[in-house]
């Protein structure tokens, strides 16, 4: 594995988006993962529609029919991938733009699909496996506990204590080997995370969190997706 890796330098990551006051982080995480996978499969980076999932994806957990993807009320990236497998894929951001509300009707047009899922799977709670899957398959959809993110401005976040209960969907796009941790008197490795709260949050929309100890649950709910090579 390379000591440092960043899919942003390799053209697989679209610009930072803003979910607004809507709990649709799960759709941003899923769409961003498919954007990366589609780039690896086709060589084209296309910004994909989160609104399509907000409006049209109501996939429920097989075992718990009340646990469903529910627009601004929340969802899960893996059930979103199931929806994408069944529906055929995602339209582009341009064709199906984000509105930040879930009050509209589903306007999905299958003939306009720009990227399709061929498969998805979960990655074990192991930092090397997460890194290997990142490098091989592209950016990874992950869950994280966001309690420290409300006040985060920059640097490598490495809280002494953080709940591992994930409540926010984001995307791992890379990792670094040496984030400075002054209190520990040494450099610490970190994950580079793309968030969906706009560029005026964090480090131009990105978050760095230390790597290897499942801090804030960031290494416990990781999924990888692969894309069909030529949906249209």
């Amino acid at each position, binding site marked *: *594995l390379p000591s440092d890796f960043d899919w942003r330098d390799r053209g697989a990551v679209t610009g930072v988006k803003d979910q607004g*006051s*809507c*709990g649709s*982080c799960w759709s941003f995480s899923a769409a961003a993962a498919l954007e990366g996978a589609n780039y690896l499969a086709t060589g084209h980076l296309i910004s994909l529609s989160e609104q399509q999932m907000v409006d049209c994806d109501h996939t429920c*957990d097989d*075992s*718990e029919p009340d*646990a469903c*993807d*529910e627009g601004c009320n*929340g*969802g*899960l990236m893996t*059930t979103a991938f*199931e929806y994408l497998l069944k529906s055929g894929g995602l339209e582009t951001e341009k064709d199906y733009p984000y509105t930040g509300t879930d009050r509209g009707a589903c306007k999905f047009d299958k003939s306009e699909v720009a990227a399709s899922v061929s498969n998805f*799977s*979960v990655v074990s709670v192991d930092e090397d*496996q997460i890194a*290997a*899957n990142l490098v*091989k*398959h592209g950016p990874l959809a992950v*869950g994280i506990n*966001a*309690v*420290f993110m*409300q*006040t*985060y*401005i*920059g*640097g*490598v*976040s*490495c*809280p*002494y*204590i953080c709940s591992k209960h*994930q*409540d*926010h*969907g984001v995307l791992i796009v890379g990792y670094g080997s040496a*984030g*400075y*941790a*002054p*209190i*520990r*008197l*040494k450099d610490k490795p970190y994950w580079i995370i793309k968030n969906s*709260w*706009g560029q*005026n*949050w964090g480090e131009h929309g990105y978050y*760095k969190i230390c790597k290897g*100890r499942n*801090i804030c649950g960031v290494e416990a*709910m990781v999924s*990888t997706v692969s894309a069909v090579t030529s949906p249209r």
Partner: protein
Amino acid sequence: AAAAAAATGDEETLIRQVVDSASTAGGSKDDLLLNADAHFSSFLRDFGKNYSGPEEHAHRFKVFKANLRRARRHQKLDPSAVHGITKFSDLTPAEFRRMYLGLRKNRRSFRTIHDAPNLPTND
């Protein structure tokens, strides 16, 4: 510090800063609290915030001050990052969760999805 180390399983957390942190990034948070009025004005301007009336303004200022204290606590718990005023500084933690977080609790589906095969990680 020992409790924190036990919780995280990291012996390094036993190293604890004992000197005054005024010269560090986190040290500026006391200044933030002392000048909360001015910082709230800057916050409103920088993030284009408008409230419905004086009561809402007063309530949001109270929440803002609570978030300054929270940022200071986060800075102590998370010294390698910088914590402070963000565009969410006028939201209570509950409002923040309701408006900006939306990951459903992971149930059976995640466990039944097939695991990614182990990849080689050396060479």
